[in-house]
């Protein structure tokens, strides 16, 4: 029972967000959608960073790959030429449905993360951080300029907008469930052991490299899935899948508490809500009869300030890296 609570608490938060998103107006609903997709990304990040304790700046590259896979395969055939004039012949006639595109996005994330992790997971510390950053740079650079495979600098328009509140919620839930199942599994526990004490863990026969690689691949798959959800939500540009998103999702993880699944979800919801609201207010928003119009940059400012504050005052995040427990609430 107690174990299930670790799953139930974050899952309940996701469902509650989705239900809340159902009752609000359709203009507001976009923010709920956006937040749910961000939660999926943060949970993907958590699977690797939270369990291994190794920093990765590269996960947005897997999200971008998911965006690309699901996007390029679902733009209607008749419109591919208009949106992606340089597209290679093979991709011109490849088309799949919504669910398949999401599955393929996850698969692309899985395969790519595994391939990248194969050499990179031998690194640790700052070298790992910089190398994963390098992956982000390369993926971003190639997707941005190589127009034989995608829209390049243009937005991924005409992708069927199938990510409604249910699809976003189910996607986020899948991520939560997979993350939970992974962290409860033998492999997740072994990886957590290497996080706490690498020397003792290797002495106990755990291969740090293999466990990190597995977590990297799993989180790559989830990030790819989140990317698929993202591109089905709105016409997205490759430029928005770069440093800003990396910063935002890392902030979510850190503010919530990178040590627990609940922390990842809470951070995603809190920062996601704050960020969507402020971003909306940058374009002007009417709230309870007030007209709010904030200057551009406020959202990042607020998120950055909140993140710095949380790090200074409570470095283990809002949840303190713990899962939800009734005993703690009672006390």
């Amino acid at each position: 029972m107690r174990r299930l609570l670790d799953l139930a608490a974050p899952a309940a938060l996701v469902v509650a967000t989705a239900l809340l998103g159902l009752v609000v107006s359709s203009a507001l609903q976009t923010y709920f959608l956006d937040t749910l997709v961000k939660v999926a990304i943060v949970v993907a990040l958590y699977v690797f960073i939270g369990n291994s304790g190794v920093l990765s700046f590269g996960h947005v590259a897997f999200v971008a790959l998911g965006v690309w896979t699901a996007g390029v395969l679902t733009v209607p055939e008749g419109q591919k030429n208009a949106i992606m004039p340089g597209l290679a012949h093979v991709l011109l006639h490849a088309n799949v449905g919504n669910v398949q595109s999401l599955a393929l996005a996850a698969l692309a994330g899985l395969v790519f993360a595994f391939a990248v992790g194969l050499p990179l997971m031998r690194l640790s510390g700052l070298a790992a951080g910089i190398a994963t950053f390098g992956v982000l740079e390369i993926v971003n650079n190639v997707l941005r300029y190589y127009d034989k495979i995608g829209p390049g600098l243009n937005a991924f328009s005409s992708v069927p907008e199938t990510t409604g509140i249910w699809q976003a919620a189910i996607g986020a839930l899948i991520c939560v469930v997979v993350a939970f199942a992974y962290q409860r599994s033998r492999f997740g526990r072994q990886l957590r052991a290497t996080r706490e004490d690498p020397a003792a863990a290797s002495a106990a026969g755990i291969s740090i490299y293999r466990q990190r690689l597995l977590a990297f691949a799993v989180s790559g798959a989830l990030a790819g899935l989140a990317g698929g959800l993202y591109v089905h939500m709105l016409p997205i540009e490759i430029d928005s899948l770069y440093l800003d998103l990396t910063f935002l999702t890392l902030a979510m993880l850190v503010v919530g508490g990178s040590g627990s699944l609940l922390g990842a979800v809470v951070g995603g919801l809190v920062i996601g809500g704050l960020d969507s609201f402020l971003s909306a207010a940058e374009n002007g928003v009417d709230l309870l009869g007030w007209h709010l119009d904030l200057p551009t940059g406020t959202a990042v400012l607020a998120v950055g300030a909140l993140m710095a504050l949380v790090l200074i005052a409570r470095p283990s995040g809002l949840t303190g890296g713990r899962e939800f427990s009734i005993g703690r609430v009672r006390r």
Partner: protein
Amino acid sequence: MSVSWQTLADALSLGGIYALMAVGIGLVFGVLRLVNFAYGQLVMAGAYAIAYASVWGWPSWAGILLCFAVVLALTMLLDRAVFRPLRTQSPAVMLVATFAVAFLMQSIAILAFGQLGTIASSVGPLNQPWDIGGVQIRKIAIVSIVVAAVCLALLQLLLLRTSVGLHMRAAAMDFRTARMLGIRANRVIGGAVLISGVLAAVSAVMLTARNPQVTPIFALDDTIVVLAGVVLGGLTRPVSATLGGFTIGFASGILGGALPTNQSQYLPTFLFAAVILVLLVRPNGLFLRGGGAAERL
């Protein structure tokens, strides 16, 4: 693929500037085990100081002075408000915190100065070419090579010949032991942070002269490349960090000049692929002899 003198001089000067930034990051890392991701935003702030000074019609020396004042003040503020409370945290927490500070400063710049940027025209004359034996070379290339060399030589003198430098090297090697032997932590850290601020200001002047269009993301790409260079060279020693910074600046300058125009947009891909390859072979750094104590994230 041919490399012109102009490309070579540009690559050398970029290497020089990156070496300065690298050692600025490396010195702070040495004493605090903190990778300052916000270093580029310090440079950006300095560049804005120069740009606004030139908009206000100040002479260029006054602009440079303002740049130093702004960058040093911000560096001190950063040390007080962020580095000091986080001193006992793990390197990962500190890195993420400076990541947050970087975005904070960038968004402040967007709020205060707008997205479009300002032109620092007062340092423009440095961009004019000099004619040396029939070869055209931009003045700034020569100037920044010289300035970088002088700064690095002075720094080397400071580190090797003064007691402050000795303290800093000792602290970089083993902070706890150094403290036990009577080195004052705040002074050493303050000194390192101050020097890194000075180097940021110098880099700001050089980078502004190279590219007078100052925007909120000024020096962001440079910082990312420098960070890669610093890790590539080896963070734990100032010399290896400097060499790493120089190498990556030089390599990116040469690559940028040598790649055909239709492929030059893929420069980051080539650069970071090379970085990843080198890291796989020498994870502790290219220029560190023996097994340098690698920190863990």
